């Protein structure tokens, strides 16, 4: 699986640089929405990697190499998780730096970013099975749904973010989101593997 993640990383290197720039720009803008959007946007990177795979017919070759179906599917999830985590850490650092330099700017709270991390994982869990089932070409319509999910989630998280810091509901909201992310992941990964196998054969 390490090989497949490395392959996606190399393939996405140019996009990764743009993505890092997006995070830098968004995280440098004061306010929760932009930083949260950057984190949730990172959940979309596996789809771009899948589109590259389809274009090069990589999957046909991979099916003949010593990769299991589980490795192929799980690598896309892992790739998404890595970028979500990286975006969260980058946003946390940049927003912390911003609040030091410009305290009045109203930077994103760590709580909002942690919540965004959980929501991003949920977005990944909900949409990756669709991509494995329909492919990225047919999944273009789904892309609008994903964008809607991303923007809606970012807006929702940013909207409730000011109420979260120090609030009694913070732990409950974050716990619920974390639980949802775990449960959805546990369900989504095996479901995607089943869809991938069915599509491949």
């Amino acid at each position: 699986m390490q090989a497949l993640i490395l392959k996606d990383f190399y393939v996405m290197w140019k996009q990764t640089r743009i993505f890092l720039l997006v995070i830098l720009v968004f995280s440098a803008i004061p306010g929760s929405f932009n930083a949260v959007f950057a984190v949730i946007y990172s959940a979309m990177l596996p789809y771009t990697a899948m589109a590259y795979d389809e274009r090069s017919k990589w999957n046909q070759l991979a099916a003949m190499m010593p990769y299991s179906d589980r490795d192929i599917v799980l690598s896309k999830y892992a790739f998404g998780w890595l970028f979500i985590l990286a975006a969260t850490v980058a946003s946390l650092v940049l927003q912390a730096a911003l609040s030091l330099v410009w305290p009045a700017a109203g930077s994103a709270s760590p709580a909002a970013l942690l919540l965004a991390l959980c929501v991003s994982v949920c977005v990944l869990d909900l949409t990756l099975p669709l991509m494995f089932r329909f492919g990225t070409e047919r999944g273009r319509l789904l892309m609008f749904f994903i964008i809607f999910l991303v923007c809606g989630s970012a807006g929702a998280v940013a909207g409730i973010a000011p109420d979260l810091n120090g609030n009694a509901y913070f732990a409950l909201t974050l716990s619920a989101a974390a639980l949802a992310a775990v449960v959805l992941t546990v369900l989504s990964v095996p479901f995607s593997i089943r869809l991938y196998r069915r599509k491949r054969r």
Partner: protein
Amino acid sequence: MNAIELTHVCKTFPGFAIQDLSLAVPSGTICGLVGENGAGKTTAIRLMLGALRPDSGRCTLLGVDTDSPQILAAKEDVGVVLDEAYFPETLNAVQVGKILSKTYRRWDKDRYDGYLDRFSLPRDKQFKDFSRGMKMKLAIATALAHDPKLLVLDEATAGLDPIVRDEVLELFNEFTREEDHSILISSHILSDLEKLCDYIAFLHQGQLLFCDEKDRLLEEYAVFTGTAEQADSLRSEAVVGRVSSGLGGARCLVRRSEVPPTLELERPTVEDIILFLVKGAKDSCRH
């Protein structure tokens, strides 16, 4: 042991089916898979490598059932070159090497670098900027660098210029100098197969018409060229295929054992045999 074995394999797609395909490639041999476009060669290769699951029948690769969990270990001993290289286009040769070093346990970086040098492949050029010949050379380098026991080549020499093709065929010949090394190669370039193969398997519309030793095929069949009257005088069991060559001439593929020994015959090429057999199969479908 057979390097590849398909037993009564069926696989149906809308508009196309592999029907009751039984084929064995003995270990240590080179088998050429021949057939028209759409005959099912690539599907057969995907079945052999476990990339497709058969509707019925059994496929084994290096003695391992393609449906068993052990197939991943067996694939460590297989090198694959498809009709295109199928690597993502933004990668370069070094990155491909790094990815595959984490894929194959026996990946040999020095050997890979050796092939890159031998083929004069640039290390830092993006794959999308490679010519077709360079892409295929890279695919061949990646297929050989983990010391496989079996090479599966699907139209791997198509689109290569004659010099590169010769170089690549020489490499395949080198590969089979090891006793337990086998190759399955599908190609439209029958002269390549004639040079390289011990066995020829011929697929036609999803069915195996024959799988036989090349030398036996070349001994069994012969080409007769003469007048239409002379061709008419041959026994019908002797004539496998016949084409009119104009001006009252005829050219026939005949079974040597069924024609008089005094008849002057030419040694056929594999291409002759395949072309006559395809024509024969088409004619029998029409009648």
